[in-house]
């Protein structure tokens, strides 16, 4: 299948290498996360690493950054073999990492965060002066402008990420590893990040970019390595490859990147929200007067940057959060607070695939069969009276796993031992197969590999075609564009616009997501 691609193609006039990983091997119990992985990264290049979830990218980078030590293999930095046993040693070797979840202390200022762990001695003032000078220099060199005295918690996400990058550079990083850096950014912010990375590379820094977004790989990287099931299957010049080829390498077979679907035939309104307000524990309105309708037989997508109220809206509609204002009507009838109990809603055909399956949708510590009945534990099929019928639970789970091709097909295995995609299939098998009238879906493919994404997308479209009203919340614009029949964009707890997929593009949606006023119609 990898046909004409050699595993590692070295150029004739080999440029200097920043990083070489040779035969890296790592196991976690039964999981062979890295199988003798080789990787070479050229100095001054942007090198992408792609792969499905669980392909071993994060493990490989964690080994490079010293979080884990490899069972076997060698790390060379600038041609010299180094033993890296802790992040501290990685930093000393000139390797910096920017995590997907920032490691920042929000109440502290930018300069305090940059200094943290690198105070340069017991006297803070002297260290602070040095860091301040260094920040000014970075701003001059790379256009990395940051107000040293701003409080990190007050900065937009894009700038917080910039603080992380600055932190790494101040510590003398020549190699910068970024793990899914655009997951939390608007398209505009992502463009800004890419411009910055390009400048850094041109100035001689080396950038390693882990992502699963092929679009980004194509747009920014010089070279790209593909991992699959713990192995490095190819390293290619980006200019000489295509998204389709990369997807095929990642999955090991041909993948349809587009969802094929017929035009929707919407029926009557099944779920309507009117001026819904949801407040968090501190009383801040996370959802601030949202109205929307979902009709039978359509998929309504809600786009937005994570943290703009989509999650709270979804949970409120599912009955998991109280309404601070507004009403929700199911099949034309307004719901009383008592009727908004999750169990009661479920009985009336409003089912919910939650955003965070590990925290909400499943119980990781339970056997898969027990997770496969979560929310439906009171159904008669699982036993009469107070007692549960173990046999019925296991056989029911097995049927669902077969229908959704969950692997391994082991109802007694702990839920946490399944891969992300298979966990998500367990959730979907539980919710979809009960014939919902309305299905609320949050981030259905987050952390799910490409093969399973295709499967999940097709299921959702099939559900729509059966006349189910689907509300889809996703931070993946591609997913929204591919699935939704109507797109709502949320920003700051409000709906900032509505679009039809054929009449918009990522740039247009990005502006709405960023809260820029809706352009004149």
């Amino acid at each position, binding site marked *: 299948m990898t046909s004409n691609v050699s595993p590692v193609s070295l150029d004739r006039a080999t440029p200097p290498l920043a990083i070489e990983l040779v035969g890296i091997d790592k*196991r*976690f*119990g*039964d999981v062979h996360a890295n199988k003798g992985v080789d990787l070479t990264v050229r100095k001054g290049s942007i090198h992408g690493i792609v792969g499905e979830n669980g392909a071993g990218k994060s493990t490989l980078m*964690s080994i490079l950054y010293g*979080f*884990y030590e490899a*069972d076997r293999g060698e790390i060379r930095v600038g041609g010299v073999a180094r033993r890296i046993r802790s992040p501290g040693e990685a930093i000393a070797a000139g390797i910096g990492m920017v995590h997907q979840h920032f490691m920042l202390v929000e109440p502290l200022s930018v300069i305090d965060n940059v200094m943290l762990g690198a105070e340069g001695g017991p006297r803070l003032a002297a260290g602070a002066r040095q860091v301040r000078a260094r920040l000014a220099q970075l701003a001059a060199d790379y256009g990395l402008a940051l107000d040293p005295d701003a409080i990190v918690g007050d900065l937009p996400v894009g700038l917080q990420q910039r603080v992380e990058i600055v932190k790494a550079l101040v510590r003398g990083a020549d190699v910068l590893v970024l793990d899914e850096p655009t997951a939390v950014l608007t398209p505009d912010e992502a463009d800004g990040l890419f411009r910055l990375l390009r400048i850094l590379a041109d100035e001689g820094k080396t950038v390693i970019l882990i992502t699963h977004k092929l679009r980004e790989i194509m747009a920014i990287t010089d070279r790209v390595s593909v991992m699959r099931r713990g192995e490095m299957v190819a390293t290619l010049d980006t200019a000489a490859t295509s998204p389709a080829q990369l997807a095929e390498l990642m999955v090991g077979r041909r993948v349809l990147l587009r969802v094929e679907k017929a035009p929707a035939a919407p029926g009557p309104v099944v779920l309507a929200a009117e001026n819904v307000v949801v407040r968090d524990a501190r009383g801040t309105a996370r959802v601030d007067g949202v109205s929307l309708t979902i009709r039978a037989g359509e998929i309504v997508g809600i786009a937005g940057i994570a943290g703009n109220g989509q999650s709270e809206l979804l949970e409120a509609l*599912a*009955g*998991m959060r109280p309404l601070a204002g507004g009403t929700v009507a199911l099949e034309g009838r307004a719901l009383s607070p008592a009727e908004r*109990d*999750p*169990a*009661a809603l*479920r009985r009336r055909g409003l089912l*919910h695939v*939650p955003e*965070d399956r590990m*925290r*909400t*949708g*499943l*119980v*990781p*510590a*339970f056997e898969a069969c*027990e997770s496969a009945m*979560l*929310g439906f*534990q*009171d159904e008669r099929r699982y*036993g009469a009276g*107070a*007692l*549960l019928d*173990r046999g019925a639970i296991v056989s029911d789970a097995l049927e669902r796993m077969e229908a959704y091709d969950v692997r391994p097909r082991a109802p007694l295995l702990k839920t946490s031992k399944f891969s992300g995609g298979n966990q998500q299939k367990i959730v979907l098998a539980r919710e979809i197969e009960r014939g919902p009238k309305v299905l609320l879906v949050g981030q259905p493919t987050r952390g799910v590999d490409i093969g399973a994404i295709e499967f999940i997308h097709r299921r959702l479209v099939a559900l729509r075609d059966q006349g189910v009203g689907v509300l889809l919340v996703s931070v993946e614009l591609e997913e929204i564009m591919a699935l939704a029949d109507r797109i709502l964009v949320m920003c700051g707890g409000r709906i900032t616009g509505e679009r039809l997929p054929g009449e918009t593009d990522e740039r247009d949606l990005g502006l709405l997501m960023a809260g820029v006023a809706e352009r004149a119609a």
Partner: protein
Amino acid sequence: MSAPIEMRRWADYVLVPALAVAAAFVVAGLVVLAIGENPLEATALLLRGALGTGEGVGFTLYYATNFIFTGLAVAVAFHAGLFNIGGEGQATLGGLGAALACLHLDFLPGWLLVPLGALGAALFGALWALVPGYLQARRGSHIVITTIMFNMLASALLVYLLVNVMGKPGSMQPETPTFASAAHVPFAHEVLARLGVTVPTTPLNASFLLALACCYGVWLLIWRTRLGYAIRTVGANPAAAAYAGIPISRVTIVAMMISGALAGLLAVNEVMGVQERLLLEFTGGYGFIGIAVALMGRSHPVGIVLASLLFGVLYQGGTELAFDKPTITRDMIVTISGLAILFAGALDGLFRAPLGRFFAARRKAGG
């Protein structure tokens, strides 16, 4: 960021605790050595004292009965994600419930009075756990704090009642009169004597069978009932419980009450079985040891029985050791038990992580 550790079940449930106990013995042995005694001889004395004689076995099982009740109590709360350290207080109130039933219903025949006494113990224990459970569920008061407070309240309440209300008039000791003979829980040596088997006199009584029945009951509850499913979901993943429409507050309160009832049953052994009267501090710290028992038994009834037997051996064997070796004081015995708790409960990871690596390495070597 630690790697997940994969191990076979037998290693998890048997090998790790066994190694922990062995380590505790090694360290305790060093202490024994330091005071000039032979640790091997001490170990032999301890084991022989606990298991080598009929009396030893009786005492060991008697102690184990207490640990099973309190261990189960802690375990049920654990499953609901609650750290109930109020076993002492709940057992104290259990004693009150048992005593009230035994003293005021003493006109009833034994076959009715004994179960009613046990019921009283469970009920009072449950009610004493209800308040912290309620405060946790509806007011967010942390269960650890409230149960500690309730231990103190229970102890003060019992002193007040025994000194001022229920105490035997003219008695030096704050204690109730001895219960009517109908409230007698049969001792093992009595029952066996009736079957023609003579065993030494020990405090072991029918409560031991009740404790074993409770083990089965807890297993059934936790793993085979809808309530148990709800309890485990609330404990393992509260967000998922909310998503599933499980009433978290109610489940929290119910789990605490079941926990309190089990702790209360300690009184069936101590108050009804052994002392046949209510007296101060009959709980003897068993409520706290229950935490170690539940930790060591991984909150599973089988593990709890095994851990209870271990602590029973330590208690009884320790007593014999202190008898035979006057240089080994009771404080030394407490130290040895403490080491067992330390290694088995608190330093669990000490052996889990290296063992996990060992098994991983072996599997790798095996291909």
